């Protein structure tokens, strides 16, 4: 799968996340979600986040 298509997929996910928060009328959260999504996208694209241990409780 090409890098461009992958990037397109990630942008589609970002669009869907924002769409979800807009539909649930959680507009106030959208700026925070945008910042967090940018950080998340960076982490995913760089393959980081090894420090996040699995939760025994798996609530999140």
């Amino acid at each position: 799968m090409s890098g461009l298509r992958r990037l397109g997929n990630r942008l589609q996910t970002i669009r869907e996340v924002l769409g979800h928060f807009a539909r649930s009328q959680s507009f106030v959260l959208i700026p925070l979600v945008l910042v967090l999504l940018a950080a998340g996208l960076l982490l995913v694209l760089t393959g980081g986040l090894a420090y996040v241990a699995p939760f025994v409780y798996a609530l999140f």
Partner: protein
Amino acid sequence: MTAVLGVSAHYHDAAAALVIDGRIVAAQHEERLSRIKNDASLPKRAMDAVLRLGGISAGDLDAVVFYENPYAKLERVLVGTLRAFPRALRQFPRALGSQLGGKIWVMDALADALSIPRARIELVRHHQAHAASAVYCSPFERAAVMVVDAVGEEACTSLWHADAEGLRELTHIDYPHSLGLFYAAITAYLGFEVNDGEYKVMGLAAYGKPARREEMARLLKVASDGSYELGLDYFDRFTRTELGYGQKLIGLLGPARSPFERWDLTTERDRAYADIARSAQDALEDALIAIATEAKRRTGEDALCLAGGVALNAVANRRIAREAGFANVFVQPAAGDAGGALGAAILGALTRGSPRPAPLAGADLGVAVAGAPIATHARALGLIALPVVDVASAIADAIAAREIVACVQGRCEWGPRALGFRSILARADDVEMRERLNRAVKKREPFRPFAPVVLESDAAAWFAGGANAMTPFMTTVAEVLKPEALPAVTHVDGTARVQTVGPSTQLGAVLGHLKQRGDIPVILNTSLNGPGEPMVATATDALSFFVRHGVDRMFIDDVMLTRPA
């Protein structure tokens, strides 16, 4: 052809299931292939396995349906942690890191893993997938459906009504009020591992008295209409998420039990912990009966289907079947999160006009074994590997000779229970067999029972009530009518988690041979795995198991393995 792949991942037991033209072709737990117990990672091995079993490639799929909505889950986590600020301060980066660093990108990850366009990936709601997995695998055209688990997106308990028009949600109770989390907190308090030790609490409960009922009423308040609330002060969700309970619960029940101590139920201290297990089990059962009774009142149906991790509580299922007013109760064998993959696949198939699947006839939906290739490897390891013509008769002979027999036949089980395809079998009438099995292989706590298997036609002679819709999948318990005859499988409360089989199955043939020989036609059946291991799936895993564990004989397909004298 309409082919739909269902996937569950990222929380507990990841799995994949494939439905082609309305037929459930395959369903596979990831843990059985990765060999990591309760593996929650994206189930790449399981997806590959079910596609191969279906004889198709990923490109042939019409849709891939994920079993929950990660965006709704992100919202719940985000709002929940912000509301609990500053208590959730330490939790915030971990929770959001876990969501944003992996879980919300699941549709991209599935498209990448399967090399298919992302537009073919779809989502359903977590409880919707559970409900579909229950009712569309059941023998009932119409039914009430009850889903009870720890938490999905927001819902922790939901009621549904299924009929010819489809599956409709009636009501739900949202996080943090969760029966699954209540039981998980008690599991952790008693020193067991959450998501694995709930069965141990259920087994331990039979040794206790309901002496802590009043305390449980503070933890879990149930109304007559089936609604309930947790006493949230006792459950610490933000600073002790790995345990789920807080200092206030310790103040109420006393010090938590260490997971590193050996159990000794002759001591007053451990009997007190058994009382807590019994009281929690009773509180859970009372809540479930209230919810099921409400489901009956709202739907008027004769049949009830259960799903969600709490539906694997076989003891509670018996009380629901007796007391909630339904004529029939059904629990799909993989009622936990893995089962959501099957529900998601079915929903995707129904949306595309596929017919409803036939009632689930058996749980052998996973990867298959072949004996001949593994015989060569076994001989290279110095084992004796002999072809067998009548496998069922040979298994019956070995059981009758008081051997511990490992049985690896056909396709592996869907769900946590061994149902004869990846099982260890032994005589049920000899308590020494249970002790030897525990010493040689299972190394279980002394209070955990082993299960029996019996022919459907013989069930009523040995177990109260005989066969029902749950017994083929071992998702309920029954009173043992002749406990003195079945000491290896009778729990301290006189019950057993019975499995029934038809005469045309291989386990049925084994039981038929034993009956012909004049032996008791009930045998002990436990899962083919050592402590902390996932159940065996492939022939290679089986051979590895035989080398490491002290079973007397193993049958892989039509090959019998023994050790040289």
